[in-house]
């Protein structure tokens, strides 16, 4: 698992207050992890802080699963980070 993926999963576990081992790649935030739309926005804010990114609202709507978040962040990291 990449360093980025570990950090993403840790943020998810912390913000949704769930055990890290429940944060599986295929888990969907709303259906599987008990998040609501507000919690997802809050999570995206935490990703933006952690990775110094700006995630547009249109992308936020597409981040449904843990893997979606990892993929988006990995492909948008500033050069030299991660």
């Amino acid at each position, binding site marked *: 698992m990449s360093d980025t993926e570990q950090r993403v999963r840790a943020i998810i576990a912390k913000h*949704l*207050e769930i055990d890290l081992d429940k944060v599986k790649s295929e888990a969907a935030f709303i259906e599987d992890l*008990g998040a609501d*739309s*507000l919690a997802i*926005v*809050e999570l995206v*804010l935490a990703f*933006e*802080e952690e990775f110094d990114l*700006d995630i547009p609202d249109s992308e936020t709507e597409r981040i449904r699963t843990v893997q979606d978040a990892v993929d988006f962040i990995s492909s948008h990291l500033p050069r030299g980070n991660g």
Partner: protein
Amino acid sequence: MRRVVVTGLGLVTPLGPSLDASWTALVDAQSGVGPITLFDATAYRTRFAAEVKGFSAEPFVAHRKLKELDRYSQFAVAAAVMAWRDAGLADDLPESVRNHIGAIVGVGIGGLDTIERHHRTLLEKGPNRVSPYFVPAAISNMAAGQVAMRLGLRGINYCTTSACASGAHAVGEAFRLVQRGASDVMLAGGAEAAITPLGVAGFNAMLALSTRNDEPLRASRPWDRGRDGFVMGEGAGILVLEARDHALARGARIWAEVVGYGATDDAHHVTQPAPEGEGAQRAMAEALRDGAIDPARVGYINAHGTSTPQGDVQETRAIRAVFGAHAHRLAVSSTKSMTGHLLGAAGGVEAAFTALALHHETLPPTINLDDPDPACDLDYVPHRARRAAVDVALTNSFGFGGTNVTLALARHG
């Protein structure tokens, strides 16, 4: 019209995080005032307040939900759950019943701490970093909304906002709804948590707060010559109001009956009371008229009594004007001498104290009344609680904007 009784009480106050702790400390003449610990108040003219101590929201709100609730809503939910249990209401009432149970929770300001924290984020990090929980946590009706979600109350739900009369308006309006048969059961009261950097600075700027920093326990001293302003408090007080026939049918314990509600406005000044407490006079008179109460039956008034130089005199004059010679036979006390001023929560907390005073036949004292102001010449139950069986008691709450509320409660059974 249906008769309305109080069957449940829940309190989170500076005297304790429960009904029993608050009432025990109250009749023991304890003060809930101390140095401000919620933020660094070193630079403030007033560095003390009546904070809620020993409170944890977690028995009442799931940890992961806490970020949805400002401190004021956490107090409200805790008090509401305690009131619900105190009333002996079941956790599994059918939907058809819960459709007719509502909640009105008054708050003077709302989620002030939430507003301040998120505003800091806005200034430091920009508009795109403001949390989606800011608005839901900050808005003033969310205490009522959270109470509804926690207890599954599907009837009418809103907040009253009328400064320091907010909680009293909530109880009064809920009383009307049950009287009229719109609801069988209502949860009503107030909540507030405004001991924040901006909140204290704002009241300090108005010169409304006591600055007796060397003696905080003696700072809230209604009717005393040395009073120099109120002491900020925080917390929540929620009552379960219930149609009397409904309460009797389920064998509920009844704390007191709500018998009258009077609400007026001074139409005079943003913060100063009208001369002779004119609007307060009409609120008390209206509560008596509303309940067809002979003034001679009133044995106790839980006063607004904030410990401000003007307000205490005007309330005293208003009581004299309404009751004439009887004003000197009834007892008046200010529980704010012990709790501080809970602003929008005060009306709920003090309605609960008034119900308890009737039920326990014990009048809470006014502490710190060492040297009564000659302009304040009533029986204020100084220093120590007093045993007295009272037939009818009033509770007064007045707010900025000239708003005045009096609730009348009667001993039941």
